[in-house]
């Protein structure tokens, strides 16, 4: 935000960074070597905007994804007023999943809702059989691991271990305070 914007009080919400998402397949390979299995599902989480404009965009994006082969889409809402659009691919193909999620992102951005995108998740199963999520923060263009450990607890040791595993493949969020917990996110509960 520039000096003039400060004087005139014009801070605006930042736009989402979409392209970094395509580096996910690299990180998935590294995670697979460590015994993490991709579950084939991923979600886009975005702010519900009042009015019907954003819902129309979502319906269109859903149509695009389901028209391609092997992908199913489901929608859910959380108690904070965010929509989750979850794409599941039967073949667990991560590149395809990334492309599907990108389609959702770009439809939202094209319609002017890029500022409403919060995060995107890729679901995995840990070697111990627990759910695990690789979370992408749109506004920062960075990833962080999220390992729910029953109830509202996280396995921080595992998360920090994963940080080392994926550090070479994707930009990892350096500020640990930004590693938001997303309890009850689809595919991670």
């Amino acid at each position: 935000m520039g000096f003039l914007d400060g004087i005139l009080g014009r801070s605006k919400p930042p736009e989402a960074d979409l392209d970094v998402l395509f580096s996910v397949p690299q990180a998935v390979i590294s995670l697979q070597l460590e015994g993490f299995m991709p579950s084939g599902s991923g979600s886009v989480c975005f702010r519900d905007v009042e009015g019907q404009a954003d819902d129309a965009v979502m319906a269109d994006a859903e149509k695009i994804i389901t028209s391609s082969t092997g992908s199913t889409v489901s929608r859910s809402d959380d108690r904070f007023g965010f929509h989750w659009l979850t794409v599941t691919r039967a073949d667990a193909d991560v590149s395809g999943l990334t492309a599907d999620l990108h389609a959702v992102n770009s439809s939202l951005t094209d319609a002017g809702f890029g500022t409403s995108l919060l995060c995107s998740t890729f679901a995995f199963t840990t070697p111990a059989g627990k759910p695990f999520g690789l979370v992408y923060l749109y506004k920062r263009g960075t990833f962080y691991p999220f390992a729910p450990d029953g109830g509202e607890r996280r396995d921080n040791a595992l998360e920090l271990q994963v940080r080392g595993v994926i550090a070479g493949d994707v930009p990892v969020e350096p500020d640990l305070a930004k590693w938001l917990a997303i309890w009850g996110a689809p595919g991670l509960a």
Partner: protein
Amino acid sequence: MARSRFRTDRGLSLRMGGVSLGLGALYLLFAAVLYQTPLGAVGFVVVLAMAWGQWYFSDSLALKSMRAQVVEPHQAPELHAMIDRLCALADMPKPRVAIAVTDMPNAFATGRTPNHSAVCVTTGIMQRLDADELEGVLAHELSHVANRDVTVMTVASSIGLLAGFITRYGMYFGGMFSGGRDRNNNSNGGPAFIVVFLVSLVVYAVSFVLIRGLSRYRELSADRSGAYMTGRPSKLSSALVKISGDMSRIPNSDLRESQAMSAFFFAPAISRESIGALFSTHPPLQQRLDQLAKVSAELSEQG
């Protein structure tokens, strides 16, 4: 092609720019007059130091004067989760979160930079608003932080502080004026003091109106940015309506206690009809609601 639904309100920016220019000009004029007298220089330094202190310690001072307690995530998980998400959406550092135990429904943000800021809500506002409305209010407060309103308002109001200081205490130091630029010539002491006194009085009055104007414009732009941040301007509207209705029913003792803080509040703590629109720190409710309705229409435009 990515487009943004965010629209700047050109009229609002223009008005705010105009007020800022006016204040800037007033600063220069006042400095030029004060430069002529030794008391002016002393007063300038004293007031500058006071303003700097107020700005630098704004977060702890404001929290203390409201007797607010900083709360950790485990003490107020819902509130923290809400602010976490808003900060992630707006990509801004998370401020400290505080709760003040008072029935007055209000919220304020303070702090010299986004990295040293705090957002405070009262228990009264948490009881009266539902989660979505509270989130609208928090987004409004976070916009104050993002817009650096504490810094802007401190700089803007320093001139009023200085002019007020001179009109009030200038009398006692009247003797210091007698020298003027030339200490050997006592004859122009009286007139020089009167000139400075009168100029200070005028500057005080003009800056008062300008600062109040600036404060109202900052509120409008915080409403605006906050509404874009949550994507739900109508929730903020309903919060405003609820709180404004409640404000007039608050016992007076509470109101007087928090008068000094009023400029940073979400809704003004003083709700007397007699104070003209020109002198109020917050825009009239109807103007805020109209603006939010416009944002809502822009957000739901299809195609």
